[in-house]
């Protein structure tokens, strides 16, 4: 599918680059430096024995970060479109989730205590701060955080879309529909669902088999996710006939801070969270400090609460056809009060 998309781009005179995120892209030098120089250093300063850099680079998450860094490099090099082969759905989900997880870990690590740590030379020799000011772990981690934040922003960019392919079989359609709900909840729009390797009557397929695959394609279309559905045969079709490969094709409603709609009512605030498919009927919602978390299929989507809701208590939530509606009431212990002591 990725190769077909790249070919379609070339036919339209556009420059596309394919990045293989299933470890084919290799370890990015920056990711290797992060893992060995920073994480390894943190462990060494905590008393762990040093590990060879290749050990760190072999971690799956380092490979996924490498793939995202390769994507960023391709964009910086001036490519019109970067096509990322995410592999199976589970890998695609990990790839999308990774920057957010790393950001939260780094946020937890960037404490004043870490800011006070100074570099300890491997040989124990003293350093001269005047000639070679050593970066602190805090400064190193802060730099990594900035890079990872840019990767997360690129993933959540409105121009980023995903196209999912499945076989016209019941299990495969089930998985792709749940993946569509999950990926949309993670903030990335799914613009196309491809029923791949569909049989044709001209190829001698039995009438019953054709009816079964028609039923599965109808399930994809009946989900009304917003993504465009099309069929592909043994000859892979990157986009439906007559469509441009760069779209627009379709698009699912994504969940992020901009699409979460806040409404002030008489005695409460209501926050509408757009969700599609199974996420709308199964997702749980919770709160931790100033963040709202939506959980579905083992993935947690973190959203920063609007300022007014940080002074409120979440009382309940109801499911709507468009997602979840969460109710908040002012928390009078932290609510702004006027000089007479009444709520302002």
């Amino acid at each position, binding site marked *: 599918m990725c190769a077909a998309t790249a070919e379609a781009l070339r036919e339209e005179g556009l420059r596309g680059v394919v990045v293989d995120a299933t470890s084919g892209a290799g370890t990015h030098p920056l990711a290797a430096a992060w893992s060995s120089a920073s994480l390894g250093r943190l462990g060494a300063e905590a008393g762990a024995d040093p590990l060879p850099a290749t050990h760190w680079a072999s971690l799956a998450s380092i490979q996924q970060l490498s793939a995202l860094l390769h994507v960023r490099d391709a964009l910086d090099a001036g490519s019109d479109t970067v096509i990322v082969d995410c592999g199976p759905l589970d890998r695609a989900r990990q790839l999308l989730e990774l920057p957010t997880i790393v950001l939260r870990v780094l946020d937890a690590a960037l404490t004043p205590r870490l800011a006070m740590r100074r570099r300890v030379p491997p040989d124990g020799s003293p350093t001269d701060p005047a000639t070679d000011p050593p970066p602190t772990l805090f400064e190193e981690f802060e730099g990594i955080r900035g890079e990872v934040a840019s990767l997360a922003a690129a993933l959540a960019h409105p121009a980023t879309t995903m196209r999912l392919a499945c076989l016209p079989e019941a299990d495969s359609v089930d998985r792709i529909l749940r993946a569509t709900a999950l990926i949309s909840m993670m903030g990335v729009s799914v613009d196309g669902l491809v029923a791949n390797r569909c049989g044709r009557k001209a190829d001698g397929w039995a009438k019953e088999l054709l009816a079964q695959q028609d039923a599965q394609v109808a399930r994809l279309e009946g989900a009304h996710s917003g993504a465009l559905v099309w069929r592909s045969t043994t000859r892979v079709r990157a986009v439906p006939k007559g469509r441009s490969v760069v779209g627009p094709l379709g698009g699912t409603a994504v969940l992020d801070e901009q699409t979460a709609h806040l409404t002030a009512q008489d005695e409460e605030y209501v926050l509408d969270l757009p969700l599609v498919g199974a996420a709308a009927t199964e997702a*749980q*919602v*919770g*709160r*931790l*400090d100033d963040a709202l*978390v939506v959980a579905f299929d083992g993935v947690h989507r973190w959203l920063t609460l609007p300022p007014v809701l940080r002074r409120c*208590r*979440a*009382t*309940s*939530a*109801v*499911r*709507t*056809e*468009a997602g*979840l*509606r*969460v109710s908040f*009431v002012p928390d009078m212990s932290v609510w702004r009060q006027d000089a007479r002591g009444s709520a302002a």
Partner: protein
Amino acid sequence: MTARRQPWWFSGDDAEQPDAVVDEDSGPDRPDGGLDEDSVSDGSADQGEPEPVVTGSRPGGDDASSNGIEWTALLAGAQRMVDWATEKVLAPHAEHTDPADHPQCVVCRTMVLIGEGRSLVTDDEPVTDPQGAGAEDVEAESGPVPATGEIMWIPIREQVREP
């Protein structure tokens, strides 16, 4: 020529000062030749540029020991402060289990202010099932009680079908 006496607040860790010694025969600042008692900290005559000084008398008075500090008096005072703190603050605080219940206690109030006063979760506290089971027990009017470091799951009460 003798070494000039440093002010009481000067640690002496800095580099040598070229004017660290003066001629003791140089005249006093006051026109009458006497010493201005308000401009000295320990009864000795400081000369040269004006220095920050402490006015008033010390417990030892002008008859204090040669280094200007009465260590015995200081130690006795410190011991009395420790005894007082033990008797009036620490002993009552030892019986306080939840700092939030004792706003009059200095230690409890300090713990609350620095954010370490939250008591640990006890067995009799309500627990919300992360998957929503048992969430009906949480009253809608009061709302879920936030817990530090844990996601507080919001009860999803009903299904609304929009036309």
